[in-house]
């Protein structure tokens, strides 16, 4: 998978990394059990501090998307992805609320918003490298 990072974005690099890797798994570009670069290699290749990559991997590990083996290194969780939990649903609602609120303020209808959601859903599933 090709990770794309915007070095001038307001979004911190570690969040971009987390989102990109989750997107890679969602689109199938990263297979279950596939190896990811080590913290040191990835940091060197991007040209950022080790802590940045470490932070991203720690978040991904806590959420259950990746595993960090002592010998095999970092891999996409081979046992499958984390399940839908109440915690996750609550978090998702929390994060969606301001987005929907903004859409309402700008006069977006429910249908329009649903259309956007459907389009982004398909987009993510397709993956940006496949085209």
């Amino acid at each position, binding site marked *: 998978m*090709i990770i794309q*990072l*915007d070095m*001038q974005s307001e979004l911190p690099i570690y969040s971009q990394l987390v989102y990109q890797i989750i997107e890679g798994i969602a689109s199938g570009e990263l297979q279950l059990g596939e190896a990811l*670069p080590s913290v040191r290699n990835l940091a*060197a290749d991007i*040209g950022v*501090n080790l802590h940045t990559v470490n932070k991203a991997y720690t978040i991904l590990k806590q959420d259950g998307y990746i595993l960090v083996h002592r010998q095999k290194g970092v891999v996409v969780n081979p046992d499958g992805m984390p399940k839908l939990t109440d915690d996750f649903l609550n978090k998702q609602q929390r994060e969606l609320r301001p987005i929907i609120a903004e859409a309402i303020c700008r006069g977006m209808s429910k249908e329009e918003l649903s259309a956007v959601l459907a389009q982004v859903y398909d987009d993510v599933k397709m993956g940006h*490298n496949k085209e």
Partner: protein
Amino acid sequence: MIFIVYWAVLQLYFRSKMIKIKGTLTTVESPPRVKIDTTFRQNKLTYSNYWFLIHMAIIVAIAIISILNYNALPNVIPMKYDFQGNVTSSVPKTYLSVLAINLVQLGIIVLMMLVNWSIKTSKQQLTPSNPAQFAAEHIRFRRKWSLFTIITALLLTILFAFIQINMFVPNLVLLTGVSFIIPVLIVLGAVWLSLTARQGGGKIRNHQEDGERSKEQPVNDDDYWKLGFIYFNANDPSFIVEKRYGIGWTMNFARPLSWYLLLFILAMVGISIVLSQ
């Protein structure tokens, strides 16, 4: 020396010119992006350092032969010849002076292993457009230079082996021939590699029309390239990076390791100069 000054002046002149031109260019809307291939490091980027075992074996074999035939050597060993084949300098026979060549050979091999290792570990630099295809070319580029390093080390080992054998079985014609051919081979190889594989591994000519070319731009790292050719970036943990132009790799001088390495290489040169006197 004159060449170095000429090169530096030329480089600084065109750098200032480029900076001016760059300032007048309109910026493209798309933000600069870094693209990283997650599978890159799983590829075989260089040939193994175990190949140097062949070199080591040759050195050890020649050293053993030298020690076994130590008594057969004359008490004074010729070190340098002029073009007529007359001895211009010589040293008294000691184990050190007989085995000095082997030490130099070992030094060269350690240096070449270091070069091979830095080709492997150097930072991944992909073009913003078409990164997957570029990665494949880039891997080929690294492997070519790695192979070149190993072969160069082997040729040098053979060259030194001839010099050492020449102490026992003087054959000036053969020695002159070999010490002419091997450097020429190495230089030709380097020239050929530089002409066929562009720095980084891309194509030398870009056949795409203007419209097809990517509008994306690489990340602007001008500030980290001091004077345009010295890489100094404290935020970057990698310490071997590709040179911005020219051939080969350079070091991130914000990392102390690169200073140690530089000292080590200077020491190697110094030691071989001292040994040759």
